[in-house]
């Protein structure tokens, strides 16, 4: 058949037209219960355990991410309690030196790599598509792969702890202590491979989030109308993409030093011990903002909803997020003020570290101005916002103090620092996290959390937190270094340490109360309406919990606070297929409809590929040959995953 033949072309077009008519699309003719039933049938995952493993539903993956991360939080917290018991009294003998070193290594690694970053990603994976008005994340299979990699990395680390080969080199693993000469055995390798797992998982999740936020927004949701939480996650995901390669590089070099005898960190062979610190903190400092910026997104969400007013000065908040993200990469040397680098350089890093206080200070102003102009309703999430401001600002200001070189030289690696970063990470990230979990709990589970227990829990946590960490400032000033398993009597350290231990148990009981409240509410809580807090963003326009396809019709957005501005039904776009999984892609800036993208079907291959990658990573702890033999099954699984199918569909332009 010749292309030039007009008759043939016409016939072909007729055929296509007929095909197109056979397709089912949502629209005026197909809506209501009939549409719901068809969408349900198209989008639901295959039944059974295999279907559970194969799912690519972002809500299911997000939920798993959140629950897994919270379990790791609990386990890391138990380690903290054991450490606090050991430090309750001077010259205590509850745990020995070696075990204590494992405890703080596991606590730090678990909290940073297995709790804080994954829980933020998990919440974003769950909520971002709902917030942006789309049916799926971009790259849903990559999303599934990301979760399994994260899970396997966490299981490997804690499996090692159970087998008594847990790492004991600190969560920062400074060379040469972590090198082959001073850490024989496999403990350091397990730490380094756990990093490999989590960095692969974090990078995959970051790519998913960037793609989703930039390309999957509802029509009309321009960048300037995007919810602030989406902005925060966009900045964070880009930061992950730039920060993780640095830790991949340095931990890769460490593994190679340990496994095949390279000498990157050995100064006798012209390596350099400090190279590790530069590469690690080039990742490690942005990591702190990777944890903190999503929390600022949570705060913006909660402040807006509970003050019933959009966040004051939206452009300032967005620019503050972006500039914090950029500055974060320019201040890693403030972790190295005691290493004897040139003083001129130090002055720049002091200035850069202090500069971070400007965007952060402006964000705090914006939230306070929103509260001033609106009328705050003190429901449980809002309490966490107030607790966040009162606590986090102390941590931010002690951060300004330790940005000064002469001050840091005394305070570095003391309990003053421990106090500082717990104020920043618990006050700045965990408080907003517990607030936002209370806030989104009804959307995720369909039931409300008990407000009474929520309030009691908040106050126990708030008071317990201050009791635990405020005395640590004094312990540091009184000369107590970090990472010591015991301290001598008579230095004045008894009182602050005893207070911290008592406070730690209060914090633990508050977290336990939160968990119990969550579990009880999940089974017996009051059923949640679609929009229990009367909030403004799109996730509240669907039922609680949301249907598997998220939205019946793709909403069209005309303002920053769509649910507050549309008094009737939301305007919608129609025309997406309902007999097959399809989502709408829009342009990056203006969010005009661009393409109809087929969504990947559930598949076992991400799970199989992550198993193959996991075996590859774990066995390469023991032999360099694993890199050769482990790569083959991984490559095969990936090839099968990406194998083009006969019925492969392609993105199609939007019609009309």
């Amino acid at each position, binding site marked *: 058949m010749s292309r030039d033949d007009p008759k043939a072309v016409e016939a072909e077009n007729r055929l296509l037209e007929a095909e197109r008519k056979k397709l089912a699309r949502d629209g005026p003719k197909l809506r209501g219960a009939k549409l719901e039933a068809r969408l349900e049938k198209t989008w639901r995952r295959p039944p059974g355990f295999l279907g559970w493993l194969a799912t690519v539903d972002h809500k299911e993956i997000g939920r798993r991410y959140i629950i897994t991360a919270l379990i790791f939080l609990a386990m890391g917290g138990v380690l903290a309690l054991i450490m606090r018991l050991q430090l309750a009294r001077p010259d205590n003998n509850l745990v*020995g*030196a070696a075990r204590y*070193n494992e405890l703080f290594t596991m606590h730090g690694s678990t909290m940073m790599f297995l709790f804080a970053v994954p829980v933020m990603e998990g919440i974003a994976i769950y909520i971002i598509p709902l917030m942006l008005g789309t049916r799926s994340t971009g790259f849903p299979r990559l999303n599934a792969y990301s979760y399994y990699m994260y899970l396997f990395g966490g299981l490997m680390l804690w499996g090692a702890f159970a087998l008594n080969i847990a790492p004991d080199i600190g969560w920062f693993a400074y060379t*040469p*202590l972590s090198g082959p000469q001073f850490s024989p055995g496999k403990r350091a390798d397990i730490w380094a491979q756990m990093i490999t797992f989590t960095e692969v998982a974090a990078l995959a999740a970051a790519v998913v989030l960037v793609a989703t936020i930039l390309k999957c927004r509802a029509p009309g949701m321009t960048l300037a109308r995007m919810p602030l939480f989406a902005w925060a996650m966009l900045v964070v995901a880009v930061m992950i993409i730039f920060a993780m390669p640095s830790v991949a590089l340095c931990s890769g070099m460490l593994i190679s030093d340990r496994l095949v005898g390279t000498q990157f960190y050995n*100064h006798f062979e012209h390596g350099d*011990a*400090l190279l590790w610190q530069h590469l690690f903190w080039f990742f490690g400092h942005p990591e702190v903002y990777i944890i903190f910026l999503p929390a600022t997104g949570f705060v913006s969400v909660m402040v807006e909803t509970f003050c*019933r*007013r*959009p966040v*004051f*000065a939206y452009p300032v908040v967005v620019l503050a997020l972006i500039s914090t993200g950029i500055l974060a990469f320019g201040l890693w040397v403030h972790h190295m003020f*005691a*290493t*004897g680098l040139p003083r001129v350089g*130090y*002055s720049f890093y*002091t*200035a850069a570290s*202090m*500069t971070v*206080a400007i965007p952060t*200070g*402006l964000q705090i*102003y914006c939230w306070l*101005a929103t*509260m*001033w*102009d*609106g*009328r*705050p309703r003190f429901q449980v999430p809002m309490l966490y916002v107030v607790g966040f*401001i*009162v606590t986090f*600002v*102390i941590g931010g*200001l002690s951060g*300004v*103090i330790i940005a*000064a070189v*002469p*001050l840091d030289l*005394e305070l*570095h690696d003391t309990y003053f620092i421990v106090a500082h970063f717990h104020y920043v990470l618990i006050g700045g990230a965990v408080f907003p996290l517990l607030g936002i979990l209370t806030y989104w709990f009804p959307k995720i589970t369909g039931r409300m959390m008990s407000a009474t227990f929520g309030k009691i829990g908040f106050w126990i946590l708030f008071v317990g937190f201050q009791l635990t960490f405020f005395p640590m400032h*004094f312990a540091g*000033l*009184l*000369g107590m270094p*970090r*990472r*010591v398993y015991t*301290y*001598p009597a008579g*230095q*004045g350290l008894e*009182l602050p340490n005893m*207070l911290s231990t008592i406070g730690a148990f209060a914090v633990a009981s508050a977290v336990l109360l939160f968990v119990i409240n969550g579990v009880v509410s999940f089974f017996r809580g009051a059923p949640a309406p679609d929009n229990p807090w009367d909030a*403004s963003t799109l996730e509240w326009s669907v039922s609680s919990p949301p249907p598997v396809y998220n939205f019946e019709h793709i909403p069209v957005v005309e303002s920053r*606070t769509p649910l507050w501005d549309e008094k009737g039904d939301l305007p919608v776009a129609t025309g997406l297929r309902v007999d097959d999984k399809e989502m709408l892609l829009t342009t990056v800036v203006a969010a005009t409809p661009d393409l109809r993208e087929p969504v990947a079907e559930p598949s076992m291959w991400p799970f199989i590929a992550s198993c193959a990658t996991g075996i590859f990573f774990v066995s390469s702890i023991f032999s360099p040959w694993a890199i050769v033999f482990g790569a083959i099954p991984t490559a095969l699984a990936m090839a099968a995953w990406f194998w083009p199918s006969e019925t492969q569909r392609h993105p199609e332009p939007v019609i009309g």
Partner: protein
Amino acid sequence: MLALPLCACSIQHYQSTFSDAAVEVRQFNTLFAIFLIVCAVMYSLVIAFLVGGIVRRRRAGEAYVVETGKHHETNPLMRIGIMVWGATVGMGLIALAIASFFADRSMARAAANEKLSITVTANQWWWDVQYNSADVSKTLRTANEIHLPVGVPVRIILLSNDVIHSFWVPSLAGKQDLIPGRENDISITPTKVGLYRGQCAEYCGTQHANMALVVQVEPYGDFLKWWQDSLKPAMKPTTLLAQAGYQYVTTRECAMCHTIAGTSAGGTVGPDLSHFASARSIAAGTLPMNEANILRWVDDPQSVKPGTKMPKVPLRPAELNAVTAYLETLK
């Protein structure tokens, strides 16, 4: 919470930044006070704004902003406020950065006019201390204890034999890392006679917590006398028991690692023991110095300080007593 600062004032400050025992720690405390005041002002502003926002909400009868339909408008006062706020934060930070810069430079200047040079080499988990002198016969090696003359600027050169450690005597000055393959230094000008404790501040392995040192600041005359005395070779044992211990220590395992001046013991792996018994503690602050503790340490170092590089040497009771008796004579 208020009891804390009070208790901070009443305890002995031999390992604490609440101190005025050296030029460096005084500079720290001045700068720290400046930062605390500025930060307290900023914190009060934030809390006042927060409390103001919460109190305003109690105005009766006013509708929520959304219900008025004016929720996309901003208050002009707040717009001016954000500029004032940004400027205040910026200026506060600039002032602090300048204060920090000048404090840093003045500390660097102090390093230029040193009168005494000491080399401290860190090991897992003890401090090797060497007093440098142009006259080689006056070079002195000791361990875990540093004597400093009051009022004399001293430069301490910092080296490491294994992993990264950090030299920190909080009552005198800030810390500085000891990094294998690099040479760092720190300057201290002590201004007050006294005893100050320091310890390793960078995680360095199993016994990081038991890697302490003591700094004795004393009048210049006493310091010179101590140096002279320390240059003398170790005392000869007088009692029979101590002589038996001398025999053992200088001819058996001990001598492989330790030096005792004036004897055939010349190992350099462990601390110099020439004046062992005049130190205040055993094993870098692990145990106080006394006869019972010497015996306990020599008998089984691994149970006292698990992981230490000193092995358990299987001694018969008689040998153990002899070695202890000899070590006790090393004043």
